[in-house]
């Protein structure tokens, strides 16, 4: 259990630096996620959840502090190395699934692998179909996102996020746009990958019911960690 997947060291993030409207969104976050954890990140709008997710996902760089992914300091890497590290180590699931509409479900799942290798091949195609099978969508492999329901699209997105067997998976309101049945299905799917493959999940959510079903809850308020506790205690303590 000692394997650290994510470590934040005094991470700060400011926007509009050097202008009169400069604003610091995160005020020195320290955080460690171990392998196999299933963590909810909650907090009201404007608390810095999305910014933190972007920093953890290496989509943005912190103004100060360090972001380490599987022990590698991402803040010390150049743009290309960050892109590669992100591609290999981090899976993303977004609220609005964000599939590329011009590609089929199977191609969307294969996209991270194709981008890594520069082209498609039989192994990648087989991997994509296997992942689609695991999220129960093997029959829909050749449909484009427009032909799938919201829940199905989100499951394709989850399959895509897992294409590299990333140690860390980030999900931004993964069920926020789904009806309760689809939301439960998507959540159960993520839980299953967490248990079976030991993938660390960091879930941003507004939904307290969903947060309670995670193992650990981190609550942000005004850019600082207000609470970090195992689930079951966090909400009662408020």
């Amino acid at each position: 259990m000692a394997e650290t997947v994510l470590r934040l060291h005094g991470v700060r993030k400011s926007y509009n630096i050097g202008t009169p409207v400069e604003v610091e969104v995160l005020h020195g976050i320290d955080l460690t996620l171990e392998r196999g954890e299933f963590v909810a990140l909650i907090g009201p709008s404007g608390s810095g959840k999305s910014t933190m997710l972007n920093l953890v996902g290496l989509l943005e760089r912190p103004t100060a502090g360090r972001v380490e992914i599987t022990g590698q300091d991402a803040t010390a890497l150049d743009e290309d190395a960050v892109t590669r590290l992100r591609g290999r180590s981090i899976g993303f699931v977004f609220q609005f699934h964000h599939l590329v509409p011009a590609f089929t479900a199977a191609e969307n799942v294969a996209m991270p692998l194709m981008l890594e290798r520069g082209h498609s091949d039989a192994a990648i195609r087989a991997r994509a179909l296997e992942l689609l099978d695991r999220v129960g969508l093997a029959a829909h492999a050749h449909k484009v996102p427009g032909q799938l329901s919201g829940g199905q699209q989100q499951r394709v997105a989850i399959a895509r996020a897992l294409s590299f067997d990333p140690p860390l998976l980030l999900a931004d309101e993964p069920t926020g746009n789904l009806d309760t049945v689809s939301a439960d299905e998507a959540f159960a799917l993520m839980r299953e990958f967490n248990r079976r493959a030991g993938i660390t999940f960091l879930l941003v959510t507004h939904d307290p019911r969903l947060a309670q079903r995670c193992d650990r809850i981190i609550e942000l308020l005004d850019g600082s960690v207000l609470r970090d506790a195992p689930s079951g205690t966090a909400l009662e303590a408020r």
Partner: protein
Amino acid sequence: MIAAPIEWVIALRFMREGRMQSALIITGVTVGVAVIVFLTTLIDTLQASLIDRVLGSQAHIVVRPPEEVARRVPAAAGSGVTARVEPRAQRLRSIDQWENLYPQFSGASGVTAASPLVSGPGFAARGSASKSVVLMGIDPDRYRRIVKLDTDIVAGAYRVGGTDALIGIELAADLGIGVGDKLRVTTAEGGEDVLTVAGIFDVGSRDLNRRWVFVTLRVAQTLLDLPGGVTSIDLVVERIFDAQGIAERLQAQTGLKVESWMQTNAQLLAALRNQTISNSLIRTFVVMIVALGISSVLVVSVVQKQKEIGILRAMGASRQRIMVVFLLQGATFGLAGSLAGAGLGTVLLHVFSTIYRNADGTPIFSPEVSPRVMAVACVTAIVVGLVAAAVPARRAASLDPATAIRHG
């Protein structure tokens, strides 16, 4: 699925997704390339046939003796000097030592044929009719390679020998003579001879048809009182636009007066050059319009595809990959448009060459597009596509994935 490079796959999918935009811009490039191919071929072939016609009846380079100049007598100390120097009248003279110099001209690099010529003024008379003519003393075998007179014969044969002579179709009409008839030729030098018309030519110029009388070198030398001499040496060069350079070189080497067709036809050359410049201007503007069209379509596409670009970046696509995706789209628009445009241009040329014809029914220009024009048009269109795509591609590559996704 797919085995091509991922950039190609993404580029083609994006173009297929925006197929209306893609079709419109490819049509635009097609029209642009067609205009360029059409105009260039039209102007090139028209110019070529014009030059051909002009050079059909003259040498590319003419070598003449240096002009005679009046020199001041070196002033002796204390003596007066006349203030005015009268220019000398240029009498008919032979090129000094021409037989020794001849190999230097006929063997010069770039020169494919040479022919000595004795020419001077004379009168052709029959009965009471008398016409001013230019006597042209030639060696028929060598002269044929300068002016293809043998193909211009309309009656009789291309035969110059003894007292056989060739005259133009207009002179024949003026004097009322035909093949086999005699005419008397006199010159200011006091020469007089009776010639037999062996052939009648039509070189396409009434003036020349009325003036030229071709005889042997020897007959002309006798008539013009230039025994053994020649008044000029005519040269033909391999590439006609090299003529001026070769002429300058030969003049410097020999000290003779060497003139190229480009000097004697300066006006024609200026007209051709202006035509070429206006064609280049049109081409430049068309290329600019095509480039702006491709650019604007891709700029719009980058904005529309912000979200997808953000997703691809988050999935591990590097900035270069995204850039290449958009550069490929620009190049593809250029390539597709140039292929279609070359085809359309060829069709236009064929259509117009059947509509516009010379008085005799032959096409004014040939509808054949040279492979060089095709290749240049295609390469240009691809390069223009790439250049036009550069700005949108850089914009796409610089999109911040987090922002792109959030705004998506």
